[in-house]
């Protein structure tokens, strides 16, 4: 299946809103860190429901926010959730970003980057479209150290890239981005049942669930264009 087919299906079944709710637990902390000045142009790669860009408009006064997604139904849903004239959505692919060089102030991506067919090339594309000093906030829950995420590949037909922390930093450097920060942003909001309720459907032990959410959380790597 293609990105379009896979994720159009997710959009049609309402998964876009479900992801928004779960991802928000950690995404909001990473979004709050972004050095966005009023009027800045922000791009959300793999925007899903588009919540991240809308939050940046509201909290930081971003001038224009564009959400790009490879699944037309995702972009269509996202457009349906807002009437804000400063927000726009488009369909496109991570591998060939349809933007001019130096045209974007900041790029955000949550739980999407690792679907890129050629992630090294996507980083080069991001470095190309960012203006000097622009940042790329790359947030992922699927990565090597988070062993609890490894099985996710089995339930999706798109090949996923599973880098570790070092590989993210090296790949950013290889693409010509400076690395300004790397962090695990914990999810402190998901409800973790009492010990006697384990095993649950999804978790063998409470310790594992705590490690997954409170410790590993979301891996954030921040790149800066030279």
């Amino acid at each position, binding site marked *: 299946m293609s990105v379009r087919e896979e994720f159009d299906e997710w959009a049609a079944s309402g998964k876009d809103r479900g992801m928004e709710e779960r991802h928000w637990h950690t995404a909001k902390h990473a979004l709050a860190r972004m050095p966005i000045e009023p009027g800045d142009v922000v791009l959300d790669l793999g925007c899903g429901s588009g919540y991240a860009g809308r939050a940046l408009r509201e909290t930081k006064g971003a001038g224009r926010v564009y959400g790009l997604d490879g699944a037309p139904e995702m972009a269509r849903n996202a*457009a349906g959730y807002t009437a804000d*004239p400063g927000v726009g959505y*488009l*369909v*496109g*692919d991570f591998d*060939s970003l*349809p*933007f*001019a060089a130096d045209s974007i102030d900041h790029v955000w991506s949550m739980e999407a980057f690792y679907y890129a067919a050629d992630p090294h090339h996507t980083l080069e594309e991001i470095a190309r479209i960012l203006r000097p000093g622009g940042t790329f906030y790359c947030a992922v829950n699927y990565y090597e150290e988070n062993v609890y995420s490894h099985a996710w590949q089995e339930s999706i037909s798109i090949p996923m890239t599973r880098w570790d922390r070092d590989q993210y930093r090296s790949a950013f450097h290889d693409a010509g981005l400076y690395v300004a920060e790397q962090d695990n942003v914990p999810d402190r909001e998901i409800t973790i049942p009492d010990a006697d309720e384990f095993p649950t459907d999804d978790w063998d032990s409470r310790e594992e669930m705590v490690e997954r959410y409170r410790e590993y959380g979301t891996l954030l790597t921040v790149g800066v264009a030279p």
Partner: protein
Amino acid sequence: MKESLLEILRCPLDKHELELEDAEYADDGEEVVSGVLVCSECGERYPIEDGIPNLLPPDMREETPA
């Protein structure tokens, strides 16, 4: 989409500028509801449907069932 997006939007293949053709506008006269974006260099055509431009490279776009 707003026409202002054209300032930074480029052909995904060769990154050249796009020209807007056959544009239809919403009642406010600001939002482009449908039309075609044409690459000024390679001539590739990208549709705008329901206000959303589709800039997928043609080989990915053509997977779309008719």
